[in-house]
């Protein structure tokens, strides 16, 4: 029996081994241009047989097997190459291999240009640390973006005036959901800071024009933020300054699976106003509070669900001097924002992102006869799919549906020159409700038309609003050429549509049939990365506006006969100087005109800030000390001067008579901010102590004029930081 077993085993073993023959694989691996490639891993797939190429690109190894095999050549930075080989009688297999350099699929921002991001491959880099350390920026994303070219210094508020566009023409998106009111302390002059905590950002992307067709119902700019995923450790930070206090935390519930990040802030401006001698202006000191929580569950290796909630409120009471009336402006607002975000990878190359969001903003403004409550509710659902078809081709597509309702309740003055409590008034109880649905598809391609270094993108989107029976299409495209890894030139073109602000759809004083506004963007962009961390960009752009809402003296109140344009150039140089200096210098030129809203004639727009220079420099004195400087210089904002007045006897008030639309210009804007930071260890906790001086030379920046009763004399209204302001604070990592 033993003999039988041995016999059978011998036969089996012989049959297996006899079928397997020893082969020698040899050859040379080169690049497309014939250059020998050393260190390439050449091996038979699913076997341990292989070798690394020598300095001259040659390889040689033996393999024992039979049938068909796959020879693999792989090296970081090159396309993996697989060759199918049938093993026959010939035992020496000569196989030369050519590897193609891998081209990483560029992201849409690279293709489209005009963007700033925290990711190097997306162009000029703006990192959260830049936001934290920009002097005078109060660690606020909007204030930092205002130092970038293309965002004009129209006011000191946080609103983004992008290349001649109104702040409403720039959208802020958080994890795929639109946040229409991201500001605190909004007034008719705009908000001062954002409600978004920079510490919560994982990625941010800002585009000032020519952006992807995935962004709809927006004319001028996009700020797209992705929040951080689940925390990897539990930690807390505490900060306090003369203007605010905050307490933030990362709490890890289940390692790499479930965690919460929260950010809470309360601002109390009394100490800073007291110290800087501005307390008397306020009857109720501007205060705000904000709590943001982000609960993230990672349910699989690739899938995540994230629930974000933000609750914020603010109030302020400030003395206002007007020609006809001195009173107190009382403003308060509440913002609620909830977003359920889901992301996952569906198959090897398809990424899905879903978002379901609710956003409510409610404010109340009171000044004399003005007593208006505004409620703005938005429900929104959105899905995006990104499909990396190959390393050279990517398809992006998505769908969104949004219902937005604005409700105005209260009284507004009948004439804007009379705000007295007993003035003529209009009672409002208006609702504007609009449901919009949109979809888009976009293709990005490298090696366009088979030409190396040529890349492009083309997208189309459509939006439909049943309430105004309107459907529109946007076509956007761009093409670029990379001269080398560091230098590229791009051209972008596209149409953009956006519905006018909902207030203009109100039946009482608006027009429910207004059509969307339209802009056509043309952008030429030249990027050059001088070296690691140093980048230079110059862009030329032109925008044509059509269908802008324009006030008309008929029953329909507004029509779409407005139009305009914006032409300009933006330049930025960002980088380091030695080991100690870093920062950026930016310059923006713009010429823009509009005929819209209540403009009497085609004139310079309110946002025509002809020249603007920002210079941000940070000097690391030592590991413990850092000093930063922020210098801004901008042309004054256009305004319409008052040239006289008519006395209205029935109301006992003077009506101002104006010169040509925006024919005047406020004085140039200048501001120097300095910040000194000291990094230290207090009670074992990492601590940053800082002192910041804003408008250190006390330059008299103004954002308007107030007039005497009959408009015969005028005096300046100083801007928020029109006086030197000093803030002292600290931040501690607990």
């Amino acid at each position, binding site marked *: *029996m033993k003999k*039988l*077993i041995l016999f*059978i*085993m011998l036969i*089996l*073993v012989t049959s*297996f081994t006899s079928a397997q023959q020893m082969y020698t694989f040899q050859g040379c691996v080169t690049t497309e241009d014939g250059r020998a490639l050393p*260190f390439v*891993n050449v*091996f038979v*797939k*699913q*076997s*341990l*047989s*292989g*070798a*690394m190429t020598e300095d001259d690109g040659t390889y040689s190894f033996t393999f024992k097997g039979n049938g068909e095999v796959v020879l*693999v050549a*792989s090296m*970081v*930075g090159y396309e993996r190459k697989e060759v199918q080989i049938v093993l026959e009688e010939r035992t020496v297999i000569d196989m030369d291999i050519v590897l193609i350099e891998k081209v990483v699929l560029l992201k849409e921002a690279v293709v489209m240009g005009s963007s700033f991001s925290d990711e190097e491959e997306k162009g000029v880099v703006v*990192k959260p*640390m830049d936001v934290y350390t920009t002097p005078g920026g109060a660690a606020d994303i909007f204030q930092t973006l205002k130092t970038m070219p293309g965002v004009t210094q129209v006011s000191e508020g946080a609103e983004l005036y992008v290349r001649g566009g109104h702040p409403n023409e720039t959208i802020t998106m958080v994890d795929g959901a639109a946040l229409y009111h991201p500001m605190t302390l909004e007034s008719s002059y705009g908000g001062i800071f954002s409600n978004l905590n920079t510490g919560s950002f994982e990625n941010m992307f800002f585009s000032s024009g020519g952006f992807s067709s995935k962004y709809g119902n927006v004319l001028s700019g996009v700020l797209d933020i992705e929040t951080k995923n689940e925390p*990897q*450790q539990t*930690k807390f930070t505490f900060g306090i300054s003369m203007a605010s206090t905050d307490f933030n935390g990362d709490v890890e519930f289940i*390692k*790499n699976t479930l965690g919460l990040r929260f950010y809470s802030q309360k601002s109390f401006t009394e100490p800073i106003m007291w110290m800087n001698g501005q307390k008397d202006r306020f009857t109720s000191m501007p205060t705000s509070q904000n709590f943001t929580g982000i609960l993230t569950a990672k349910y699989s290796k690739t899938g995540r669900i994230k629930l974000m909630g933000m609750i914020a409120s603010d109030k302020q009471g400030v003395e206002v001097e007007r020609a006809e009336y001195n009173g107190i402006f009382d403003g308060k607002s509440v913002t609620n924002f909830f977003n359920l975000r889901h992301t996952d990878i569906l198959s090897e190359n398809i990424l899905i992102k879903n978002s379901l969001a609710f956003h409510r903003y409610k404010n109340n403004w009171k000044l004399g006869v003005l007593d208006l409550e505004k409620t703005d509710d938005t429900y929104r659902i959105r899905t995006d799919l990104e499909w990396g078809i190959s390393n050279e081709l990517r398809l992006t597509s998505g769908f969104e549906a949004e219902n937005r309702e604005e409700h105005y309740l209260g009284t507004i003055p009948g004439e804007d020159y009379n705000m007295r409590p007993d003035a003529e008034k209009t009672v409002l109880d208006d609702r504007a409700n609009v449901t919009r649905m949109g979809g888009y598809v976009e293709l990005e391609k490298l090696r366009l038309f088979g030409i190396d270094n040529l890349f492009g993108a083309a997208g189309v989107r459509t939006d439909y609003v049943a309430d105004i029976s309107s459907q529109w299409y946007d076509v956007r495209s761009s093409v670029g050429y990379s001269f080398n890894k560091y230098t590229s030139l791009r051209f972008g073109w596209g149409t953009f549509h956006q519905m006018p602000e909902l207030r203009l759809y109100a039946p009482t004083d608006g027009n429910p049939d207004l059509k969307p506004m339209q802009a056509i963007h043309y952008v030429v962009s030249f990027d050059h990365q001088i070296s*690691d961390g140093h980048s230079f960009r110059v862009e030329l752009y032109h925008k044509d506006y059509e269908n802008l809402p324009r006030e008309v003296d008929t029953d329909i109140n507004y029509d779409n006969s407005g139009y305009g344009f914006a032409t300009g150039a933006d330049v930025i140089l960002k980088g380091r100087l030695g080991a100690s200096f870093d920062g950026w210098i930016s310059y923006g030129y713009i010429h823009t005109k509009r005929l819209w809203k209540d403009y009497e004639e085609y004139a310079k727009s309110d946002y025509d800030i002809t020249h603007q220079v920002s210079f941000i420099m940070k000097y690391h004195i030592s*590991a*413990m000390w850092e000093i930063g400087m922020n210098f801004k210089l901008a042309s004054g904002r256009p305004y319409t001067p008052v040239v006289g007045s008519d006395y209205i006897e029935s109301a006992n008030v003077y009506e101002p008579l104006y010169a040509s639309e925006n024919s005047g210009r406020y004085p140039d804007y200048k501001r120097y901010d300095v910040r000194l930071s000291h*990094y*230290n*260890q207090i009670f*074992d906790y*990492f601590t940053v102590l800082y002192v910041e001086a804003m408008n250190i030379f006390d330059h008299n920046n103004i954002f308007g004029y107030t007039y005497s009763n009959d408009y015969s004399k005028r005096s300046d209204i100083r801007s928020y930081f029109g006086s030197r302001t000093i803030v002292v604070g600290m931040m501690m*990592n607990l």
Partner: protein
Amino acid sequence: MKSKWFIGLVVSLVVIAGLLNIYPQSELDEQILKTKQLLHESFVYHSDGKLKEAYAIINRCYSVDSENPYVIYYKAMCEYRFLEFSLDPDKSDLFDEYIDLAEEHADLLLENEELASEANVLLSAITIMKIANNSTLGMTHSGLVYQYAEDAIELDDKNPRPYIFLASMLYNTPEMFGGDALESLNMSQTALHLFENHTYENPLHPDWGKLDVLAWLGQAYNRLGEIEKAKTIYEQALEMEPEFAWVKYALMPQLQQQLESSSN
């Protein structure tokens, strides 16, 4: 009758093994051990060529068995070593090429009972490389380095490698932010003690790090003014590996220079 069953069983096993084309585990292990050796040599000689060779072999192993924890570990280890090379001024591109891969593969081992502690060590080391690549991350990521190292110790209190990175962090962090040369020295000594008193039976198990420890220990002594002790430690390292590049070409000459300038 019994013998027929036995023959049937043997035949079936041989046929199944043949059909599945199963590689003898020893051959895979052999390749892993080869990777391990090349990794060691690459560190000793500061040779990126040897590292590339190690990476090529472990990638072949990965193509055969992508779930083998030791294959994943040494793949992650190679990727981490590439990050170390990215500190060379002309190799900075390596950082972007390998950072995500290293993190991804180290993450895969967090749930593996045998290698979870080592995975935490790697994550601690990778986080240090992130800080080295971008010093502004120091404020936010330092805690993470300690956290991973502490988790590694909690998972295996005989593992000396977490102490290497604790020593490195404590040595490289400015004093004002919690850096402490004496504490760094203590960490290195703890690591050394563990290296000398505990060995892992499985030859595939990571055992690198003793040379690293000696380098950090010598530097800590040097900073504390114990130059002679530092010299002895460096000599000890060179006795173990006479071509240990870090000590032979950087730390020792630096120390000699110090000794010369102090004697002058």
